[in-house]
């Protein structure tokens, strides 16, 4: 899609604008690129370099080769947190999108107070991760106290706690996107379906949802990356508790924080066992980055391809 358009642009009058613009690169492109280089590219490259080093601070890094990567992959807690995160992302993806869609669908049926509901549902987005974690840990514990337990005591509480928190925050946002998508579904197509005698369900499935694919693409993308990068909420709500212990092949005891997600695992490794582990943490971060990048690309490609088919 992209290529076709830019092909158009090279011909005709597009050239005029393009040539004029190119001379102004320092106005348009430079500020953002310079800041991007400072705020992202440079630290990122240095981060990749550090993943091959043993270091306490970035100033005293010693090159050690790829051993950090072996340490990272050999870490059971890291592998566990990967699966935990994947499960979380899958559940969050489905739940958030279903709920957001359902709410959006109802709100676009012209029910009374729709605007008010929309306002309320969107509001949690304004509250930040650490604060959200504090609020919900008090809420959950207030409830679980009655059953003499706490969110920190069982993995399943932590997991569902995080899911509920994430839904509470994200459903509103995705709902807005779905509402916009639903309002953009051409009325004549809906009318035509009704004329054909299609019921509510078949209209929904045959007409509405295919027309919603762009909204679905963006929502799944956002929920997926948000879930994978979740950190503040995880830190503040469970901090990884409860822990279990697993005896490794060499007899040492591995501690696995059973509600720890990838970002938190990386963070914890930074302050874990001696200076070697900082390199391992950096290696984990690189692996994590690659993983998220691959997932995002795959996800965008599959949903986008559906869009085109339409």
């Amino acid at each position, binding site marked *: 899609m992209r290529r076709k358009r830019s092909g158009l642009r090279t011909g005709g*009058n597009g050239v005029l604008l393009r040539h004029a613009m190119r001379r102004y690169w320092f106005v348009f492109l430079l500020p953002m690129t310079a800041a991007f280089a400072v705020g992202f590219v440079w*630290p990122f490259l240095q981060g990749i370099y550090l993943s091959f080093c043993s270091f306490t601070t970035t100033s005293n890094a010693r090159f050690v080769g790829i051993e950090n990567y072996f340490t990272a992959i050999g870490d059971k807690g890291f592998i566990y947190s990967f699966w935990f995160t994947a499960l979380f992302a899958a559940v969050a993806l489905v739940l958030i999108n279903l709920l957001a869609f359902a709410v959006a669908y109802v709100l676009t049926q012209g029910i009374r107070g729709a605007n008010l509901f929309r306002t309320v549902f969107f509001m949690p987005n304004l509250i930040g991760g650490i604060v959200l974690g504090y609020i919900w840990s008090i809420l959950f514990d207030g409830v679980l106290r009655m059953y003499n337990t706490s969110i920190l005591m069982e993995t399943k509480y932590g997991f569902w706690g995080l899911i509920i928190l994430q839904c509470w925050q994200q459903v509103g946002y995705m709902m807005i996107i779905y509402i916009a998508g639903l309002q953009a579904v051409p009325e004549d197509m809906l009318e035509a379906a009704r004329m054909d005698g299609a019921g509510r369900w078949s209209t929904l499935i045959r007409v509405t949802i295919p027309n919603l694919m762009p909204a679905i693409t963006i929502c799944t993308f956002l929920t997926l990356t948000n879930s994978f990068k979740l950190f503040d909420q995880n830190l503040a709500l469970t901090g990884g508790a409860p822990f279990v212990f697993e005896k490794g092949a060499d007899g040492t005891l591995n501690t696995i924080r059973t509600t720890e997600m990838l970002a938190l695992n990386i963070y914890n490794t930074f302050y874990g066992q001696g200076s070697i582990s900082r390199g391992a943490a950096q290696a984990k971060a690189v692996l994590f980055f690659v993983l998220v990048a691959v997932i995002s690309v795959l996800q965008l490609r599959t949903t986008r391809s559906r869009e085109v088919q339409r």
Partner: protein
Amino acid sequence: MKKRPGSLKRQHRSRLALTAVFSVIALVYVFPVFVVVINAFKQNTYVKTQTFSLPTQQSFVGFDNFIKGMTFGNYPFIKSMLFSVVITVLSTGLILLCTSMAAWYMERVNSRVCRGIYYLCVFSMVVPFQMVMFTLSKTADRLQLNTPWTIPVIYLGFGAGLAVFMFTGFVKSIPLEIEQAAAIDGCGPVRTYFHVVMPMLRPTMISVGILEIMWIWNDFLLPYLVLDRNSYMTIPIHIQYLQGSYGSVDLGATMALILLSIIPVVVFYLLCQKHIIKGVAAGAVKG
């Protein structure tokens, strides 16, 4: 199409029922915020034991928690609030201006390098902050980007990804003809941008702006590690300081400060919610 009166009535009734159901859900939705409000007025020890009950005579402490939270340590909370506002406003403004310009440029020029930068930006969206946190704080320090007035550059750099992604998505949908007409009329690119492109980008600007405001206002680790810690704090950092070194937290005061930090954003939201919601919708769908 004609509808039978019976079905209309039924529909009407089911809509009312839905409104009722949604009212309940909405109440549940605001409940957490309500809990923060009631607990902000309770004495510390009652926050955990009587989380859901209204302050009683025994547990009610008036505005003590607010006073305690605001005067804790030697750093006035009002200063933290001020810096939070400065950082959020400046950063968001800078991001909106620079990334929309860059996105327009990259989409229109569309050279290989521009595409390269674009994809780099998109990739930066998925990089965990933990990966760059130390190298970033060092770079920021060397470049003196460690004050509320210069930290926006860091936010621009680290936050460029999402903004560029969303702006580019929108620019793609703008018909080229308008810009070309401006060019033919003798408008230079800079004027074309400010007079033609920027007004069209408004919905996306709002949408991106909201996202950035939400992120920057609530951000903890980045300002914590980057800012010159001797002179500057933000609200989330301040809240974190209520914890003692032995893990004891004054929950009452924490709730009070949380409430104080939520109020500005909620007011802001209620004032411009129309734009916000429109912006979020427009930006996302086109993106």
